[in-house]
């Protein structure tokens, strides 16, 4: 047996000294700065946390393109894009508060743990003062929680679950993207006009946070106008072949199929449904219809011709003809050769909104930024007049109801706008039961 030189007393002494040594830098920094990652040099670092691998990598790539474009515009490069149309004029094209904007990127892999790890690394190693991104509600909620603890601002990307600004809302988190409730509120009247008020709906729902809230929202909104919900079936995420879920639909007496799916699941379930010939069938004396409440152009491309004539909602679409949308499409299209997706649009807006809030608040301190964003009313970012509500940090703006085009003229021209639903119609009280259960809490400046 070998004798260890380490004694209990020695170990305690060493640990105490080492512990004090490790704590020392933190003591100094916390004295020197009032908040996490206060940018002291001539640059400021933003952290773009997007899926660069995994199922949503294409969305992540489009988000990253938009982030790079936003940084270019903030630093005074390019044609300025929506900076020219944005109603707030606090940004001058010289970075943020005169500091040149730099960025680091992380790969969320569309997994909550990977997303938290990459966000943590960007905050701790790269000194990112703000984290933004996400292409899934599970990821967004996880990263939002992390940013709240770390004391940095989180500007959510593509996240549509009610929970992000509902029961999981955080003081340091802000969402520009619309949510499941808004989709339902915008879609229901259009569906009633198209298909009448005597319909039986069958829901297929992705079995996670976003799917549940969307199912709840759509069922509530359609039931309120007289529809019946025949069945709600949860499907495992990434089920691949949905035929065994689709096959019983016709037999159930339902005449509308609601697909609460996104990404690859949406592509596959919709393709399966069309293959089964559901849309050519007559049930209860009516044409069978399919609804995809959350549409994305990138996904529509995967589903090909199957989207034709199918209704859904979207946060923004490149074919909008307002000056802001046109400026953004021109800027993005000239740089990359194709129009931006709704994911690209929302993250570009979020970057500008953050920078503008810093400029108006005069500080990178998350609490000052939060204060500047809360209750902020703006226009000129492609969605018409918009409010960042103070109660839950959710943006309230117009919602687009869209339909898959019958005869697309190009590979981007897949959706057409059926109706622009005004913000007032999709606004709900902050204490709405679908959003109950959480509290913003106090802002955390960290450090």
């Amino acid at each position, binding site marked *: 047996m070998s004798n260890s030189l380490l004694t209990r007393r020695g170990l305690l002494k060493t640990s105490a000294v080492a512990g004090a040594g490790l704590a020392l830098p933190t003591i100094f920094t916390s004295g020197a700065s009032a908040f996490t990652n206060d940018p002291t040099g001539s640059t400021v670092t933003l952290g773009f946390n997007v899926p660069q691998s995994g*199922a949503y990598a294409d969305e992540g790539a489009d988000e990253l393109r938009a982030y790079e474009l936003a940084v270019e515009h903030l630093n005074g490069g390019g044609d300025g894009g929506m900076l020219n149309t944005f109603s707030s004029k606090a940004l001058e094209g010289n970075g943020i508060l005169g500091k040149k904007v730099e960025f680091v990127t992380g790969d969320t892999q569309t997994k909550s743990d990977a997303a938290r790890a990459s966000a943590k690394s960007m905050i701790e190693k790269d000194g990112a003062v703000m984290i933004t991104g996400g292409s899934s509600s599970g990821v967004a909620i996880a990263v939002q929680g992390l940013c709240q603890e770390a004391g940095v601002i989180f500007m959510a990307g593509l996240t549509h679950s009610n929970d992000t600004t509902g029961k999981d809302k955080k003081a340091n988190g802000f969402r520009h993207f619309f949510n499941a409730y808004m989709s339902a509120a915008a879609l229901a009247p259009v569906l009633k006009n198209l298909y009448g008020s005597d319909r039986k709906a069958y829901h297929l729902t992705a079995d996670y946070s976003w799917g549940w809230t969307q199912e709840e929202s759509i069922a509530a909104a359609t039931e309120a106008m007289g529809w019946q919900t025949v069945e709600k079936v949860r499907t495992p995420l990434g089920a691949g072949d949905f*035929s065994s879920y689709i096959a019983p639909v016709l037999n159930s007496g339902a005449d509308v199929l609601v697909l609460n799916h996104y990404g690859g699941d949406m592509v596959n379930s919709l393709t399966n449904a069309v*293959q089964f010939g559901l849309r*050519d069938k007559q049930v209860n004396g009516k044409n069978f219809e399919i609804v995809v409440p959350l549409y994305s152009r990138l996904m529509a491309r995967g589903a090909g011709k199957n989207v034709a004539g199918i209704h859904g909602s979207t946060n923004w679409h490149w074919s909008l003809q307002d000056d802001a949308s046109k400026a953004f499409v021109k800027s993005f299209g000239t740089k990359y050769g194709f129009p931006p997706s709704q994911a690209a649009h929302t993250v570009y807006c979020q970057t500008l909104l953050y920078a503008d809030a810093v400029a108006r608040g005069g500080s990178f301190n998350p609490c000052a930024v939060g204060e500047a964003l809360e209750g902020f009313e703006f226009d000129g970012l492609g969605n018409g007049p918009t409010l960042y509500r103070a109660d839950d940090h959710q943006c309230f703006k117009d919602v687009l109801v869209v339909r898959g085009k019958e005869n697309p003229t190009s590979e981007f021209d897949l959706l057409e706008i059926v109706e622009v639903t005004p913000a007032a119609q999709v606004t709900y009280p902050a204490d709405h039961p679908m959003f109950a259960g959480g509290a913003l809490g106090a802002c955390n400046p960290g450090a």
Partner: protein
Amino acid sequence: MDAILLQVLNGLDKGSAYALIALGLTLIFGTLGVVNFAHGAIFMIGAFCAVTLSRILSLSFETIDPTKVDFLGNPATIKTPYVEAWFGPEFGGALIDWAVPLAILFSIPIMIAVGFIMERGLIKHFYKRPHADQILVTFGLAIVLQEVIKYFYGANPISTPAPEVFKGSFDFGAMFGFDPNVIIYPYWRMVYFLFAAVVIGAVFSFLRFTTFGMVVRAGMADRETVGLLGIDIDRRFTIMFGLAAAVAGMAGVMYAPILSPNYHMGMDFLVLSFVVVVVGGMGSLPGAVAAGFLLGVLESFASMNEIKSIIPGIDQIIIYVVAIIILLTRPRGLLGKRGVMEE
């Protein structure tokens, strides 16, 4: 009754895909003794052969149409596929429409070549290594292949429709006296099932009724003795690897309209196919086919609402539950032989 019939039908096409992949897996295992975790990736590459041929046929030249504008307001470019320009819009259009069935011919040489390169280039060097090493290296290979496909084709699924004539579904119920629309089955899935039956029949006949097949079967039973008889069994086994790759590849091609191909689809099928092979019995070809259909049908049953309401989540674990029960009662699987993987 109607719901049960419906799910049996439903399980058949999924079962066909499992059976085709598992057939190739067990063929490779039986001949070369290699546990090939890259087999799912071969299925995926097959599906991407369909995507590739459909893209090749849709290759277009661009002309400027000054009367229309693109999304930036510039004169629009109109794309005309070369095949339509060469063979006329009717025949050219039909070629593009039939891209998936045509891709079978296109995929066979490609898949055999992929199989050859994989076997000669990498897997050959691991024959004498433990199974754990083989699993690691083939699993690594699967990830590499997957990432290569993602690099070229992106991460989102790519719509690859079946020919227009196979659109819609056949009303089985009406034929057997049930109400209309109760038991419907898409035409393309019927095609898939028939296709799988033909391929499985062809592989069995090849092994059963040809001299080559006889030698291969002899080699599977006793490789050493066949070698001592002066037969170059290694070369034949390499050919079998190519054949197994072609079977999985064709399965992938035909599956493309059912499941829009994405880079990850191979992994999704691989795990289930392994369960199929184990349940069927390692190295047993009929076992793999029988287990493929059995598990496909059971999986469909488990996703019925009536069953899910009794045992929630059963649709996601049914295959593994059945696998455990079968392995506990028949440790060698349904049709497994004594001595395989037991040394």
